[in-house]
């Protein structure tokens, strides 16, 4: 599904990714864990093609569904089946909840219908005429997730979807991700919350100073959660 080879990225002179290679198979949930500044968000932005403006540049291969997309413009990559949930949730203030949901095009074979979205997230139906940013933080996160599901994206790139949310909402997000996985959707998840990551993911990559330093399966993570937390400085 996704195969990244020797990906490096710079902000001006500063090198934030140093030859990252990783691979995600169809239907997997894989997390990218690491401290702040390890390069996790940059890696997602490179896959999307968003890393490149204002002195930023990247080099390497980004294989998605068998083709190198590293040179494609952002919207063309997305139309091949990428769904992006940015770290700030990316909810528009000038669009209603429903406009937020229906803005992006359908990009994959199994898009959710609006009804399906509203059945899963009844709160979004209630607020569908309100401006997107009038929702609570948790509701905005649900909106951002619902949006990429409505696109029918085949690979979700989620940047810390649980950050700053209550445990109850984190549980809900976990349930949704597991559900989505059963439908064959692939997820690359950036996550600082190792405990949460272990409840949803199949595998984990540990990123430090722009390099993949470990690749762990889920049992290993559960067994060594404390050690990992220490590494992350949490």
């Amino acid at each position: 599904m996704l195969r990244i080879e020797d990906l490096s990225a710079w902000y001006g002179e500063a090198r934030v990714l140093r030859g990252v290679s990783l691979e995600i198979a169809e239907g997997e949930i894989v997390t990218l864990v690491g401290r702040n500044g390890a390069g996790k968000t940059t890696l997602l932005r490179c896959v999307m093609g968003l890393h490149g403006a204002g002195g930023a540049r990247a080099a390497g291969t980004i294989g998605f569904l068998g083709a190198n997309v590293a040179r494609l413009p952002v919207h063309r990559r997305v139309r091949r089946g990428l769904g992006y949930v940015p770290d700030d949730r990316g909810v528009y203030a000038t669009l209603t909840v429903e406009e937020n949901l229906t803005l992006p095009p359908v990009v994959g074979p199994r898009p959710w219908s609006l009804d399906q979205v509203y059945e899963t997230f009844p709160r979004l139906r209630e607020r569908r005429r309100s401006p997107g940013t009038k929702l609570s933080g948790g509701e905005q996160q649900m909106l951002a997730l619902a949006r990429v599901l409505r696109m029918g994206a085949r690979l979700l790139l989620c940047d810390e979807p649980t950050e700053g949310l209550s445990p109850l909402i984190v549980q809900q997000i976990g349930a949704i991700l597991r559900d989505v996985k059963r439908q064959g959707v692939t997820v690359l998840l950036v996550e600082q919350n190792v405990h949460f990551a272990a409840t949803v993911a199949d595998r984990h990559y540990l990123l430090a100073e722009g390099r993949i330093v470990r690749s762990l399966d889920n049992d290993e993570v559960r067994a060594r959660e404390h050690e990992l937390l220490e590494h992350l400085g949490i």
Partner: protein
Amino acid sequence: MLQQAFNGLVGGAFYALLALGLSVIFGMLGVVNFAHGSFYMLGAFGAYVLLDSFGVDFWVALAAVPLVLGVAGVAVERLFVRRLTGLDPLYGFLFTFGLALILQDAVKHEYGVQSQPYPRPPALSGSLDLGLFDYPAYQVFVLVVSVLVCAATWLLLTRTRIGVIVRAATERPELTRALGIDVGRWVAPVFGFGIALAGLAGVLAAPMRAVNPLMGADLIITVFAVVVIGGLGSIFGSVAAGFGIGLVSALGNLYVPALSQTLVFIVMAAVLLWRPAGLFGREEAAL
């Protein structure tokens, strides 16, 4: 006084059409278009040249001139403005300012600085009984057209798929690309649309204002104040502030004639002190 208020609304109609175009362009491109007044002037000259040299009447000019200028706007965006994206906004200022001077001087070179006459269209030459007073039919027509155009633009932006895309791209261009939308495709049409609105205002102005190369430069300073008062990039704000400032300056003219030139800027300063982002603007810091 009522009649003066009506004059104010008619004057405000021009502010609103120009401010609306400036606002749409600023929102989508982040470019403050200093050449906007020149396109307004070209609209008026377009109507004048069509009538004077080709005998083409007002009604054809009203449709054709904005269309041609809109296409010219698309070309200007594709050929020049596009190359400035990602650079310091100063380059945008310099380019559009330079373009304004070039257009203005080219027209000056051809027609001189004296005002050209443009007759009112015969169908609108009389006056209308508005109940309380008689008013020139042409001025009523200008007011009605600009209200309709502003309302149509509003509906286009709030009720259509195109409007959703333009609003999204205006608020967060990068995110909008990351959701699979080719934002670049929409930039030139939006620029052209803003220019077409300026051209329309120019054609409407020809029969009631002096048609000369400086007419745009004289008006645009006030329009910038209007856009700032309404909130930079706010569509609703620029239209509301356009009509509002038209009213305020007409009434100001009546009661404090000495301040008539500066009143707009006093209002602008007061609004900025009270709401730094303008009446309907959103503060970036609050996001």
